[in-house]
């Protein structure tokens, strides 16, 4: 395997079952290939319902019904050890990889703390399970590094503001120095000043620990500010992957183009146009390219056949018939 790959996702297909007998399901992740590199900040972009959170859950191995993985593999390579995430059961994942190798900051993270447990006990619980010693003074140093006072350890979650709780969850996720951190919409419910602070915290700790940060958000502005590479998802497919700067300068996939060009900016009143239509129902996705009903350049072949993944250069891949050389 390549040395710089930390997660290798191959041909991943995941569904949410609705009616098993009649074989009705939501096809949330469809044929996803993605290589995540060691030490990078990679963003996963896309609108609500495009499958980005589902992909994150599968990468972390947090797979509970109705979510089901139909095929594909997720391999994590850390410290010369390979972990085949989908072949492990939950107990193995908890014992071997969660918190130490990979950690997950869930969506709405300000509401995931146990309301009847002090903040201190949240930290102790994780340390007891995963570390040989429980050293609360280390925890104090750690949360002070996040701009929190040591007194918060004695507080219950409801006594802290949303931003403070969010920082606590981030502190928990980073405490055991995981090599991979997945942050799923880490700042959607917070105001912009706090959003900036929290994202800076994540980026700084990524630099300090030299680990891999996967940021999942619909906010293209956030991707532009913190990621090295972005993977754009649409209706369960990855439609484009590329370096952040190159992608914002020259988006290739018509969906990425629409997403980036529709964003207004302060100081610019020029007219912007959004995409027509809305994302498809994934219980019954359109044939061929799933974007074709909204695509301004749709051709015959787009309606019939799935587009191939085309490698444009070392960093950029796009899944679109427009870039197929004849």
């Amino acid at each position: 395997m390549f040395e710089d790959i930390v997660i290798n996702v191959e041909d991943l297909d995941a569904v949410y079952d609705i009616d098993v007998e009649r074989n009705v399901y939501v096809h949330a992740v469809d044929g996803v290939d993605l290589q995540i590199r060691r030490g990078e900040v990679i963003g996963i972009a896309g609108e609500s319902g495009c499958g980005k959170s589902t992909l994150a859950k599968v990468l972390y191995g947090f797979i509970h019904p109705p979510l089901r993985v139909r095929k594909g593999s997720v391999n994590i390579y850390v410290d010369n050890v390979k972990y085949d995430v989908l072949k492990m059961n939950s107990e193995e994942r908890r014992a071997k990889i969660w918190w130490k190798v990979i950690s997950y900051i869930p969506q709405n993270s300000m509401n995931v703390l146990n309301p009847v447990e002090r903040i201190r006990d949240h930290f102790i619980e994780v340390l007891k399970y995963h570390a040989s010693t429980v050293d609360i003074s280390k925890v104090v140093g750690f949360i002070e590094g996040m701009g929190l006072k040591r007194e918060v350890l004695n507080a219950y979650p409801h006594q802290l503001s949303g931003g403070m709780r969010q920082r606590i969850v981030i502190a928990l996720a980073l405490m055991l120095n995981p090599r991979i951190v997945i942050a799923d919409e880490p700042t959607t419910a917070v105001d912009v000043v706090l959003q900036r602070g929290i994202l800076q915290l994540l980026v700084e700790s990524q630099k300090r620990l030299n680990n891999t940060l996967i940021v999942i958000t619909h906010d293209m502005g956030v991707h532009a500010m913190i990621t090295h590479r972005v993977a754009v998802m649409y209706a369960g497919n990855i439609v484009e992957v590329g370096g952040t700067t190159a992608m914002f300068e020259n988006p290739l996939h018509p969906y990425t183009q629409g997403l980036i060009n529709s964003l207004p900016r302060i100081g610019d009143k020029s007219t912007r146009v959004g995409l027509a239509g809305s994302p498809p129902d994934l219980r019954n996705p359109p044939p061929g390219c799933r974007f074709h009903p909204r695509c301004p350049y749709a051709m015959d072949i787009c309606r019939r056949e799935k587009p191939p993944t085309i490698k444009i250069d070392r960093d950029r891949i796009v899944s679109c018939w427009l870039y197929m050389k004849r």
Partner: protein
Amino acid sequence: MANLLELRNITKIFRYGLFGFRFKAVDSVSLSLEDKPLIFTIAGESGSGKTTLARIILGFHIPEYGEVLYKGKNIHKLRGYDVKWYRREVQAVFQDPYASFNPLKKVYNYLRETAINIAGIGRDEVDGYIDEVLKAVGLSLDKVVNKYPHEFSGGELQRVAIARALLTKPRLIIADEPVSMLDASLRINIVNMFKDFKERYGISFIYITHDLSTAYYISDNIAIMYRGSVVELGPVEKVLTEPLHPYTQVLIESVPIPNPKARTKWLETIKLSSVVEEKEFIARGCKYASRCPYVMKRCIEEPPPDIAIGSRVVKCWLYSEQKT
């Protein structure tokens, strides 16, 4: 020019618990909208009082102090025919369209009721009229007529909500976070529609949002709110590109910009505060004092006055010498 809408010293007090803590969700806010088509943004973070202010303008809340004048009439004292007149003139669009419509009722029934009861359209003309208005938002009657709210996507249902508001031929629409539930690629289409309605039909909008980028894109004037007070007010080009109030400055610097070249500046480390919000609401002086980098003794002791600078008003002691 006479004002279309005028808010004079509006204060709204809320309480927590029976004997608990009282705070001013809206604290002596004065604003006015000139009587010409314009888009006025009220921007602020969650808890700034912007939605409470919208609900006061719509008559859902009665303020403890101050009055709201629409075309010179106090809207909280309207009686009889005037109530219906105000409902026709001023319409609303809310954040979550699925919460605005009863899930058990076909949306067509809402449109029909609004058209007949409030707009006063005759029963035989009503379908034609509804179709015409739906076409203005990019839908049509046959796409809507037999559907329940859950059969629409979020973007479509928000269009239906906007069409419902347009049915009464309103002069003013209060849009409270109308696009924050929608996906980025659909947001711009909705705000473009507001711009278009302003120009085509002469409708004014009060656009309530936390999103400064769309605010800049569509509005003429903007008021920035913080903890119940308007801290800066003026033409959007001025306020958002040359902000005066320290809070407006931090706010604008923190907006992520969809351009990786702006990254270095955005990543310059800011300090996260651990200020408790409740304390700011009841602060004696400036409510931003506990976070402000330029805080002076006076800021903690006395509430800052509104200071007019050129075309705008800023509530900050830093500018008190420049008072004209």
